[in-house]
Every structure is written in C-alpha cells, then in structure tokens.
C-alpha cells in the first residue's frame, strides 16, 4: 500500500468502513458462539457437559434432556452418506479427468456441480414423495432379503422397511455431497504433473495403475480435504433429512429405523418448545452442532490449504 494513501481523510474513513465490514465475520462467529452459550447456560447448568452428551433421554414432559440420540443420528447418517458418496465422487473425478473425451469434460463437470445448486428443500421433498416409496417398496425389501440373515451385518437390516429411515436419509445426503467431493477431487487430480503420469505410462503402467499409484497418492491431501468438507456440510444439512428421517429419539441399530439428527430435532421442535429448559436444551444442541461442524470445517480448510501450498511449489 502506498504511503500517501493514508493522508487523505476520506481515504481514512473508507478504509475504516471496509475494515469494519470485514471484521463483521469475526464478530459474527464470536457473537454466535456467545449467544448460543448464554442461551444454553440453563441447560448446561442442569445437565453439565459430559452428562448431556452421554444421556439418551429426550423427554420434554419430565424435562430431562440429553444429546446422545441426536449426535448418534447425525453421526450415523453422515458417515453412511460418506460411505455411499466417496466411491461415486472419486469415480466421477476419475472419469472427468482421465477417461472422458475432451468435449464432454466441461459439460459433465458442470452438470455434477449443478447438483450442489439444487436447494436442500427440493431434495427433501423429492425424497419424501419419490425416493422414499421406491426405497420401501423395492430397494429395502431386496436388501433385507440378501443381508437380513447374514450374521453381524444382518443387524443393520432388521425391521419393517418404511422408507422413512436412516438409509433413505443417507442416500439423499450422499447425493447432496457428491458434487463437493467430486469437484475438489477433480481439481486435485488435474494438478498432477503430466511428466509424472507420463513416466508411469512409459514403464508400462495401465491407465488404472497410473490413477491408483500416481494420481491418487499425489493428490490425496486435496481429496481428503474435500471429503472432510463434505462431512462438514452433511453434519449441518437440515431440510434434506427433515422430511425422511422421522423424529425418533432412540438409539437404533437398523438402517430401516427412523432416527433424529441434531438438525432435524431443531427444525421440528424449536418453534414449539414451551418450557425454558426445553428451549435452552435445544440451544445447547445447536451449540454442539456449531462446535462440531466448525471444527470439522476448520480441519478441512487446514488440509485444503496444505494441499494448495504443496501444489503451488
């Protein structure tokens, strides 16, 4: 910045205004944290931290609240959706960077990214009216027939498939996060120097071996960052799962059971909470979610920055 710039009074004002605008981000983060902590102080005082996180109670009548069923539901749906989404997303990235003819690369990449532009409420509604009947009538009975009696794995496929359950919610979530993982993976794959790839081809490697042994190892930082970013997005997704998860405050083991995530509980119960401790517990849940997703996203950002540094060298 030039020295003379500071001497002009209008310039001083303008620089202060812009500074204030950009500090609003920091103020917002601190403000959100502060408000959530102070709003949940009643519940923090009553239930403590560890007890709240480890209790499976969620009983507005007895005024006894715990986060475990919600955290469990959030973790279960998020991890399951990652398990479904990661192979597909990396497959898409491999297709777009290595297999697809050049004229298709742009359009297919853009089409996949359009998936990220569809509002989450549309995913939720589509899930409720279209996907859920398909799941309960065709896919879930089929899965139950195949895996239901297999020892250990069978636990996941018990109960009556209703379509309003963990599996349906996870499938919808996985569709929503595919574009994030896929586009970051694609960009990371593209940064692999062609010299390295060509030397692998020169010693007789097949295309898949180049991808598996050269491209993926070279770009693993970026891909990993993309996966963690998707994890952070999935943790906080509300509307897409609110339609198809039910709102069931129990620890369930089957994919065909209804469950509750933190976001679904907030969406369904926040406006109706009638006692102070109820509302305060909901704020407490929001605080838990905020901290969880903030840490996840910070980790994702850390890896993506590391990746950026590595590739720009």
């Amino acid at each position, binding site marked *: 910045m030039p020295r003379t710039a500071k001497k002009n009074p209008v310039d001083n004002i303008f620089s202060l205004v812009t500074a204030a605008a950009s500090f609003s981000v920091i103020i917002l983060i601190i403000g959100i944290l502060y408000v959530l902590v102070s709003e949940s102080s009643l519940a923090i005082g009553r239930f403590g931290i560890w007890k709240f996180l480890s209790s499976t109670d969620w009983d507005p009548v007895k005024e006894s609240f715990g986060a475990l069923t919600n955290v469990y539901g959030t973790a279960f749906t998020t991890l399951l959706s990652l398990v479904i989404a990661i192979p597909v997303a990396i497959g898409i990235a491999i297709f777009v960077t290595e297999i697809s003819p050049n004229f298709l690369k742009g359009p297919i990449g853009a089409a996949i990214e359009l998936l990220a532009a*569809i509002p989450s409420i549309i995913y939720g509604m589509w899930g409720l009216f279209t996907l859920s009947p398909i799941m309960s009538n065709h896919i879930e009975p089929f899965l139950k027939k195949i895996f239901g009696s297999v020892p250990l794995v069978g636990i996941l496929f018990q109960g009556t498939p209703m379509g309003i359950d963990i599996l349906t919610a996870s499938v919808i979530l996985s569709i929503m996060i595919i574009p994030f993982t896929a586009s970051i993976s694609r960009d990371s794959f593209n940064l692999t120097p062609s010299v390295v790839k060509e030397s692998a081809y020169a010693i007789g490697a097949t295309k898949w071996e180049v991808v598996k042994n050269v491209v993926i190892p070279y770009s693993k930082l970026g891909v990993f960052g993309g996966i963690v970013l998707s994890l952070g997005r999935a943790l906080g997704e509300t509307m897409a799962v609110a339609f198809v998860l039910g709102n069931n405050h129990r620890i369930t083991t089957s994919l065909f059971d209804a469950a509750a995530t933190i976001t679904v509980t907030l969406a369904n119960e926040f406006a109706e909470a009638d006692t102070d401790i109820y509302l305060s517990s909901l704020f407490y849940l929001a605080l838990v979610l905020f901290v969880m997703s903030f840490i996840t996203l910070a980790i994702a950002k850390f890896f993506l920055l590391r990746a950026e540094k590595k590739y720009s060298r």
Partner: protein
Amino acid sequence: MTREQIRKTEGIIALTLSTLAAFLGLFWLVFILGDVLVHGIKALKLSLFLNDPAPPGVEGGGLRNAFVGQLLITVCATLIGVPVGVLGGTFLAEYARGRRIARLISVLSDIMVSVPSIVIGTFIYAVLVRPIGHFNGWAGAVALSIIMIPVVLRTTEDMLSLVPWTLREAAFALGAPYYKVITQVVYRGAATGILTGILLSIARVAGETAPLLFTSFNNSFFSVDMKQPVASLTVTIFQYAMGPYDNWHAQAWAAAFVITVFILLLTITGRLIIKWRYK
C-alpha cells in the same frame, strides 16, 4: 490368466465403474430435476401467483403471499449482505492485502460459508425474535444476509485480487487517493466478477429454508409488513409437503418448480459469465 491379463482386466473393471459413477451422478440430476419438472408443471396455474391460500382442506387458492414474501426477504437480505460483503472483501484485497489478519478473515469466511444454516436461525431467534416477542420478516432477512456475507466477501476478495497491481500504480501516479483508485479503477476492473458473485450468493440463499423456520416463520395471509411474520416459498413448501392434503402437495410441487428454475437460471448465468469473462 497371466499377470498382464489380470492387470488389464482390473483396469477395465475400475474404469468401467468410474464411468458408471459419472452416469449415476447424471442420473440423479436428471431424476430429481425431471421429477420436479413433471409434478411442478402439472400444478402450475396462473391462480397460484394471483390468489392467497385457501383455508386448509378447501380446494383452490394460491401462494401469492409466499411469492411476494420470498421476494421481499431475499431482496432485504441482499441489501444488507451485499454492501457488507463487498466492502469486507475490499478490505481484504486492498488495505489489508498480504497481512495476516486478511488471511485469517479469509479462512474464517470460508468456514462460515459452510456453517449449518439452522444454527444461524437459532442465533437470530435469540437476537431478533425473542426480544421483539414474535417472529418477523427482518429476522429472516438478517439470517439470510449472514449466510450471504461470507460468500460475497470471498468472491469480491478473489475478483479484486485478479485486477493487476500495475493498474492501481497507474492511478496512484496520477495522484489519486487510494479510495478513488479502488472505487473508480479497481471496482470497474472487477465489476463483472463481483456481480457474478452476488448472483451466485442470491442463488445460494434463495433456496434456504432452515434459517427461516424460526425467524420469519410463515404467514397464511398476504403481508408485506417486515415487522410481522412473512411467508416464504421454502417454508411453505415444507409445511405443505408435510401436510395431509393433496392440493397442498400439488402447490408445494409448483412452488418447488418455480424456485428450482429461478435458482438454476441464476447459477447457470453466473457460471456462464465467469466462463465468458475469465477464460
């Protein structure tokens, strides 16, 4: 099989699976959009835009209140979010360029972009709804603007950074103070990019539902009073789709169709502008 054959087969299987993955992604896109299109067009009537909702269970009625309310909330959110975002981005790219604080705010904004929107809803409920005593339109607009600020801020920062430094030096050499250089030279150079960022950020918040659930809430009557609960398309879709009536479901599909088309058009326009201007 020989070793070579095994390696080749493995390659063919893996590459086929990757191709299938790409088609699976496209399949979902076509499936979802097609479904919204088919159901939405069937329910799309002129009365949807002209009438207010009929009482529950009664046929007919429209969503005029929700269309107007959605527009109102989105416009107000844009009016709050865009100036803050653009000015904030200006600070990062100009006055604080290269400083540690600029990097910190930049990273924090990237995180804020993905923070769960429902958490922002609860925050605004505590700050702007409970003290006032009832749900109100401004609370919804502020909640959306909080989602918007980091998006606009980051794109503005990136776009301003693309303007060559020599251009600023040329203006400095003429004796212009920095604020004039920024507003008259740098902003002009980056105008298309900033505008695109704004378009994309509007597309991002227009489909948000979770932050509106307990801020602007919903209103089954026509109202443009931002101090009262204001209906929005997204919350109405949630309510109608979960409701028991078939004509509610039909109207929810129609609303979903309108909002999807609007957002996809904005997104595609934004993408095309970037491609056309910066490639």
